[in-house]
């Protein structure tokens, strides 16, 4: 079977660390034909191993008939225009999360892809991560009954020297960055929704700026959600933990018939502590920073294209995660309980 021709729009950190290696893992199913980045060197470096074309403007690749799908790995403030352009050119889309900055942008993206008859898969990679896939399977089997309480804490480590969340990086630019809510906590918003299978009805949150050198972008959020089935969810998401902090991802679910826990410090069978932090080679695949998740994600898009079926995570789900995240930010800003859906 012919391989799916890919274009890569945005060749920064997430492209280098996740999407390009994922393409490499699926070399039997995909071929990277073109890259684009405003940083010409980044575009060239991403293209080189594949012998792909590279450019500083993504529009040219959309004209190519040998490219069937694009992977959009740019900051969220660029997503809506790029997805609309790709859809108009008839390209299927894998778009990094967060889907967009606003619900209006998300709606534009969904409408454009629907009108063009192309796939839109938003890269909520946790849904393709073994840890969470196994949790979802256990919930579906009824292993712990009805979910009543969930928490997923994500305590990301600060960098030394710190670049992210400072003016040295777009994540630290208050004009364009959605901060930790959009960068990180949208994962938690999605997971809480996915696991409980219910609609968020209330959200309360507090946000903060905690990192030295941060000029005002939210890098911390703690929020709690009430769902329409009565379940409660919560998450504390931060980016200031020292290297090697053992409680990076801490998932707990309590149901009417049991509990599920996936907590980093309990999952690691082998931990190495060095002068610059810790790494966990013993159970790598159960932690989040692993390639299979992104390869599964890309494989899902390829499978949906080939089989002519919808992707397993419809874009409406990504929109709902965005809605919950934006509501959490609004709650933090106003000090109010924000109500969603029928309770709004």
């Amino acid at each position: 079977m012919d391989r799916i021709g890919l274009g890569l729009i945005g060749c920064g950190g997430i492209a280098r660390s996740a999407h390009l290696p994922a393409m490499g893992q699926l070399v039997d199913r995909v071929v990277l034909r073109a890259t684009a980045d405003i940083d010409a060197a980044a575009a060239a470096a991403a293209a080189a191993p594949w012998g792909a074309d590279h450019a500083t403007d993504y529009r040219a690749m959309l004209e190519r008939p040998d490219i069937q799908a694009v992977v959009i790995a740019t900051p969220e403030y660029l997503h809506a225009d790029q997805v609309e352009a790709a859809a108009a050119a008839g390209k299927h889309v894998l778009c990094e999360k967060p889907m967009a900055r606003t619900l209006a942008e998300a709606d534009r993206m969904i409408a454009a892809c629907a009108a063009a008859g192309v796939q839109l898969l938003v890269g909520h990679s946790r849904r393709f991560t073994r840890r969470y896939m196994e949790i979802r399977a256990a919930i579906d089997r009824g292993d712990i009954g009805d979910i009543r309480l969930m928490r997923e804490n994500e305590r990301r480590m600060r960098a030394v020297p710190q670049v992210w969340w400072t003016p040295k990086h777009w994540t630290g630019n208050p004009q364009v960055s959605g901060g930790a809510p959009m960068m990180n906590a949208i994962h938690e918003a999605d997971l809480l929704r996915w696991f409980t299978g219910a609609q968020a009805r209330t959200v309360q949150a507090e946000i903060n700026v905690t990192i030295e050198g941060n000029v005002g972008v939210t890098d911390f959020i703690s929020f709690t959600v009430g769902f329409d089935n009565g379940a409660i969810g919560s998450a504390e998401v931060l980016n200031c933990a020292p290297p090697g902090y053992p409680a990076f991802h801490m998932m707990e679910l309590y149901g009417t018939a049991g509990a599920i826990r996936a907590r980093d410090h309990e999952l690691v069978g082998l931990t190495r502590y060095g002068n610059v932090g810790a790494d966990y080679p013993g159970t790598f695949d159960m932690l989040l920073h692993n390639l299979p998740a992104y390869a599964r994600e890309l494989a899902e898009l390829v499978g949906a294209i080939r089989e002519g079926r919808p992707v397993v995570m419809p874009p409406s789900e990504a929109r709902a995660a965005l809605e919950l995240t934006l509501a959490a930010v609004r709650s933090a800003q106003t000090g109010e309980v924000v109500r969603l859906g029928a309770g709004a």
Partner: protein
Amino acid sequence: MSGVIRLGVIGAGAHATELVAHGAPLGRIALAAVAGQGTEALAGRAGVPVVDVDTLVGDPGLRAVLVDAPVAERAALVAGALRAGKIVVCPPPVALDAAALDAIAAAAQAGGGRLLCGGEIAHGEPGRRGLAAMTAPEFGPLRSLYLAIRQPRCGEGDVLDAIGWEALDFVLAAVPGKIEKVRVNAGAQFGAARDTAVILLRSADDVVVTIELSRCLPASLPATGLGEVEIDVMGALQALRITPQSTAVRVHRDGGTDLAPWLDAPVLAMLRAVVAACDGQATDGIGRTRAVFDLMERIRKEAVLF
């Protein structure tokens, strides 16, 4: 000041039992007598007499009193001991209403007694070391504090009554700034009573505190005593992960992790605080107890929304 400090115990709660089980020596503390219902066995093990409460607090040679009686009885017992001029240590909650708290403050003022907060988490070695570490200059300014207490589902009553006091006692020991915002998401998730509460607090100096209290543990996750306690504290320079039910407090620095094994029961730390108070160290048990009470009132008010 040196010399033996004679201590009386009122009640037969977990801390009183732990104290007696520890046996002698207790440093400069000498257990002199016990009082209260159901304390005969305790007195027998300790080899001290059982006396009535009035006799115990009226003993002029008694310097300090541990009140570990049922919650509903504590306020009156604490007030009596303070009125008699004793140094009193009592686990939270000391008082369940504002009038009782006012009576305790008045008794302390009238009799010259002093109150020490007897929070188990704050006095236990992991919590105590954690509090010391997070106030050290190398920790940097406090950024956030997460505290979860999870108990088995078999417990009864409102979770705020059951474990909320302990949580707030530790939080207010750790967070220096005034709590300005209180948000609560609570419900009866596993039974008929309110058994779960997620509480978000924000202090005047922008520390965000997340408290999760729940009686959510299934039988396959057994927990005794206070339950599973998990505390994660972020400072500008360091972080702390404190798990009092395990055996250590870990300090995570940029260059690695320090692990300090814990050694003693919370009640022994309470007794050291008693000794320090007898030696003249200032105490603010009344102030902190009032702060904990006031914060609990605000949390209850917010929780009514749900």
